[in-house]
């Protein structure tokens, strides 16, 4: 098993952090994992993204031209990565930040009102965790509960108060299932 996941959005939306939560969870479950931030030419254009590769074997490339899944937190990310996803892969979009849906029929598209959900549960900044919950709830890359355990284990002491909101966000995101 190997999956390449790109998480992309504006700086400040928590794309890099969402990738790290996934990477910590994968590490704790004994998987090989790489996390690499947007770096070099990809950095231009005001977006922040990271690529996470989760695998049962030694990982070759830490980046992918045709990722298995993309979390797009804004329109430029949707425009850029939608055409690149592997057929059969997953596109998870923060519906509240874009003005269109996907035209691709060979991938699973999940439009999630992540910002609205995050506000409902008390913190707009948890939209990244909602979308990560949708990703894991559909792809099942890791054993049940791995992301929640990673949040418990790796959140810095001064941020521990956000763990419960983040766990709630993961659960709400996982309710969105591909057709």
């Amino acid at each position: 098993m190997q999956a390449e996941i790109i998480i992309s959005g504006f700086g400040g939306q928590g794309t890099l952090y969402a990738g790290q939560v996934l990477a910590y969870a994968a590490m704790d479950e004994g998987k090989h994992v790489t996390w690499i931030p947007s770096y070099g030419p990809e950095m231009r254009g005001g977006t922040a993204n990271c690529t996470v590769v989760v695998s049962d074997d030694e990982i070759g490339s830490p980046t992918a031209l045709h990722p298995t899944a993309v979390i797009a937190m804004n329109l430029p990310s949707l425009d850029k990565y939608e055409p690149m996803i592997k057929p059969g892969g997953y596109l998870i979009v923060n519906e509240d930040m874009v003005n269109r849906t996907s035209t691709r029929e060979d991938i699973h598209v999940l439009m999630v009102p992540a910002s609205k959900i995050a506000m409902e549960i008390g913190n707009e900044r948890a939209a990244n965790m909602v979308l990560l919950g949708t990703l894991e709830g559909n792809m099942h890359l890791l054993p049940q509960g791995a992301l929640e355990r990673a949040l418990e284990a790796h959140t810095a002491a001064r941020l521990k108060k956000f763990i419960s909101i983040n766990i709630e966000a993961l659960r709400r995101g996982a309710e969105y299932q591909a057709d």
Partner: protein
Amino acid sequence: MALELIKGNIAVAEAAMRAGLVSYFGYPITPQTELLEHLSARMPELGRAFVQAESELGAINMVYGAACTGLRAMTSSSSPGISLMQEGLSYLAGTELPAVIVDVVRGGPGLGNIAPSQADYTQVVHGGGHGEYHLIVLAPASVQEAVDLTTMAFDIAEKYRMVVCLLLDGFIGQMMEPVELPEFKPVRTTPPAWAIGSPDSKGQVVLTSINIDPPTQERFNVKMMTRWQEVEKNEVRYKGYFLDDAEYVVIGYGTAGRISLSAVRAAREQGLKIGLVRPISLSPFPAKVVDELADRVKGFLVVEMSNGQMLDDIISIVARRVPVEFYGRMGGMVPYPDEISNAISALVNGKHDVNIDARAEWLAGLRELVGTGE
């Protein structure tokens, strides 16, 4: 032991301290800065020396001074800074001083950019400083390998009284992977006999690279060349993948090596018998394995994030027995596995011409792909 998820730059810093680094001298430059930043916090905590020098010239000459006392000394920088250090590296080599330097290579030439590159190969492997000397050059392809090689680098440097260069690129520096960090080694408290201030030294200790008398200088160079033969015997490192039945072999190190692994696996899935050699020691170079493969495979593809600097070494080893082709990206661009897959197809389905001008063929293709900006 528990795994930690950390960036390559921080992993190297932490591994160096655990290996007994007691004196670090550096000057900030991206994409290496986290390494220096981490040490600026951690070294004082342990009562060890962290000095931000006034420049890279200052840093490398402070390393020279610290190394003369037999202390474990290190500096780190990125390409333009490593260029500035070349004089100091030659002086360290000419004085037989052990030290570790880290080069997190970035796109160039000139000020270039902060993106990952492998364009410093020639500078560090074939010597950017004056005179004749060798650095031992180690090129990790993962964060764990960066930790393991950093740990080893200080021992190797002291064993041969030579400078060890860890050659990383921005990908390895910025990437997070799970690593197991080693335990802290005890710090050496007594300097070795050759060092200034050693209780074991016999009489006055003079450490210098000046040999005003040419026969004396020649004898020194013979001694160092002889020592280098020992290094070549003992310190060659590489990792081979799928070599047993390989008909064609890809050669790449560091980030280019691990990206090539993805392309080689994809080729295997299509039934192509492709292998991979990932050199870990670039100096001494794993020439023997390439030489032996050249007698039994149908061709090689060299992959680098440069204009083919290791390529020249491979061409020299293979000596036109089989074709050697090349794929590279330059200036901070990193190839995707798909590009390497295309180059593998071109090699397998190509003309198998041993006289091919690999660099010219590759450049024509890249010029077509990206243009010249004119």
